[in-house]
């Protein structure tokens, strides 16, 4: 794709999403990074998913010191672009509104981010454990940077909860 074509996508998004985003950047030819506040993220992602006809690939999370940064990766295959929507959810208020309430594709990944990082997704219809066992102790989040493997010992597993 030529630079002029990609510049077109950037300009288009800038025009449509002017008020809602913090900033938008295109560091490489096929990647666009949009930074958004946590309150505005569901709007932007749903706009990209429904009206802009992007496909949802996955979501990822990483523990920055101030909070958890969640990135939603969406793709536009006809224009050969991957559009990433970044939000930083601070530790002081670890909540974000759930997109899985309306769109089914987001449900499982939000369950996984919830159990691994502790981010609360408001309004999610089915917040159960996805990959951790049911007997894993509550309140411990394995993918945070301050989690040590010695935090969870064998006695903490509560097998009654797994129902076997």
């Amino acid at each position, binding site marked *: 794709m030529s630079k002029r074509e990609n510049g077109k996508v950037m300009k288009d998004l800038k025009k449509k999403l002017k008020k809602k985003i913090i900033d938008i950047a295109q560091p490489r030819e096929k990647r666009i990074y949009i930074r958004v506040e946590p309150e505005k993220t569901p709007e932007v992602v749903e706009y990209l998913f429904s009206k802009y006809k992007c496909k949802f690939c996955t979501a990822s999370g990483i523990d920055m010191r101030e909070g958890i940064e969640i990135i939603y990766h969406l793709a536009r295959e006809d224009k050969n672009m991957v559009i990433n929507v970044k939000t930083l959810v601070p530790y002081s208020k670890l909540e974000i509104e759930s997109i899985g309430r309306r769109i089914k594709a987001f449900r499982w990944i939000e369950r996984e981010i919830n159990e691994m990082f502790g981010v609360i997704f408001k309004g999610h219809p089915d917040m159960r454990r996805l990959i*951790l*066992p049911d*007997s*894993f102790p509550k309140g411990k989040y*394995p993918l945070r940077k301050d*989690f040590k*493997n010695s935090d*969870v010992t*064998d006695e903490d*597993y509560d*097998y009654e909860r*797994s129902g*076997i």
Partner: protein
Amino acid sequence: MNILKKSFKKSIWVFHLSTAACNNCDIEVLELLTPRYDVERFGIKLVGSPRHADALLVCGAVNAHAKPRFLEVYRQTPKPCLVVAFGSCGCSSGIFRDSYSIVGPVDKVLKEEDPDAKIVYIPGCPPKPEAMIEGIIKGLEVI
């Protein structure tokens, strides 16, 4: 009774159980039945139900998901029975030793249920089929 005990060594039926394994060891078990390492000449047969089994081939580091289920399968196997912990993950937990959801290698989990369980260890990642055959035959002398 002596002749029955002798016939026990000549015909072992195995049941394959995989707890949180990477499936590499499972493929090696399948290889044992192929013409190159044919184990049917020792009388070993792969069965589909733990009730018919004489030996449990357990591979994989045991997960918290898998622990109650593994103990349940062990209880359902008629004794006398041999437990074969094979692969590095089965003997010690291998490289997953400090992980947050691995509860322990096979013998640590099994000793809670039955301290007198007979366990054979076959290390390797994955173990070669020749090593597996030798391990099972050595285990037969224990029973």
